[in-house]
């Protein structure tokens, strides 16, 4: 589902090219990028390109995995069997998306254990949106509609990312993502059209809480986006944070009208001259607070992941031991 433009760390300096041979490789690499070509795992690439991708793909993978937690909260409390089956399928998709992405990151020469260790020790980031709590059933629908909707906006351009294994993973993910958004909207629609007055209030309340964090998913404003220029140059990023955010707002306004909810922004207004919806100021202090670890659920989420990993250790060990024994038996036979 969800990457946010997570270029939220201090920009590193690209290492200067040292040898003549490297300069030649660099020239060919740049030329390939310029003609819209793809880079494959075993192709030469600048170290900084590799590092940027490892960071971005693994953060994206972590987001998918951590993203299962807020939704998992509602599996046993889904209102009907149908909604429960849908939610389980969606959560399983998120797990799958995490796995596609970890595999893509591993092609760059990092191991799965290294990636998970970075998450578990708090070194790697994941999308800040998952540090918000899912307080009511309507939150599950709103996550599908807004959070997955924002994720789709972010992710569709990544299908053309210059790093081919990432692009291929993204194509697969985007194909599955549309279901997530539609099921969320559908579940909200049922509550708004057939629900009780209380259920309608619940939907509006969930929209109020998730709207601004959803807009933050597109990352800091272009002016403060530390990695953007280099990532654009390398075809890792195709559309700027602010442009994607605008696209999302423009697409969502009508969906809110059809649904019968209000988006919690008094400054939201159609701007005829721009041909876009104007919207109010985002609370970037809140964004940086949540990215920095002080969101409502940061500690709970990370603790949940670490516990799952540690509780599963004996299963992973047992599977390896079983495989080793089967191999020995086969060799002996």
């Amino acid at each position: 589902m969800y990457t946010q433009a997570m270029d939220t760390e201090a920009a590193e300096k690209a290492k200067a090219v040292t040898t003549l041979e490297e300069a030649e490789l660099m020239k060919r690499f740049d030329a390939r990028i310029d003609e819209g070509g793809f880079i494959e795992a075993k192709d030469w690439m600048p170290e900084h390109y590799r590092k940027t991708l490892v960071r971005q793909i693994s953060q994206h993978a972590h987001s998918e995995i951590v993203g299962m937690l807020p939704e998992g909260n509602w599996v046993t409390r889904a209102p009907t069997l149908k909604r429960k089956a849908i939610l389980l399928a969606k959560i399983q998709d998120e797990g799958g998306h995490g796995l596609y992405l970890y595999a893509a990151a591993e092609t760059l020469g990092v191991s799965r254990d290294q990636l998970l260790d970075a998450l578990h020790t708090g070194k790697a980031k994941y999308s800040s949106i998952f540090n918000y709590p899912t307080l009511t059933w309507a939150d599950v629908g709103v996550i599908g509609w807004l959070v997955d909707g924002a994720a789709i906006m972010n992710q569709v351009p990544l299908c053309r990312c210059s790093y081919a294994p990432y692009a291929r993973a993204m194509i697969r993910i985007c194909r599955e993502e549309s279901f997530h958004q539609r099921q969320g909207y559908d579940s909200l629609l049922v509550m708004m059209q057939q629900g009780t007055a209380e259920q309608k209030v619940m939907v509006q309340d969930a929209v109020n809480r998730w709207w601004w964090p959803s807009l933050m998913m597109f990352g800091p404003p272009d002016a403060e986006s530390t990695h953007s220029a280099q990532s654009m140059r390398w075809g890792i990023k195709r559309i700027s944070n602010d442009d994607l955010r605008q696209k999302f707002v423009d697409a969502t306004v009508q969906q809110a009208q059809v649904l019968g909810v209000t988006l919690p922004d008094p400054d939201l207004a159609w701007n005829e001259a721009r041909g876009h919806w104007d919207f109010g100021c985002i609370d970037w202090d809140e964004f940086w607070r949540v990215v920095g670890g002080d969101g409502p659920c940061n500690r709970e989420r990370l603790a949940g992941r670490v516990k799952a990993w540690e509780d599963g250790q004996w299963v992973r060990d047992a599977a390896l031991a079983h495989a080793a024994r089967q191999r020995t038996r086969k060799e002996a036979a």
Partner: protein
Amino acid sequence: MGTEASSNEWPLWEVFVRSRAGLDHKHCGSLHAADAKMAVQLAREVYTRRQEGSSIWVVRSDQIVASDPGDKDMFFDPMEDKVYRHPTFYKLPPDVDHM
């Protein structure tokens, strides 16, 4: 493909899926699994949740032998100047050109 598995990491497998009878198996990604049987089961969960497959192959990533991307030009160049291997190389009279 890529990294060497560290000591207690499940080994990496490449997954190939035949989407329906009559088509080739096509590489669709990789995953970690303790053994072959588990790799096939996990491949089903990870890569065919929407009936994308009718058959799955898995192979240990470290068992794959690949051409060297560094030698790509030298390796594939010999085929570049052999246009006579294509049917379009031969200009035939219009009456029989659909041959």
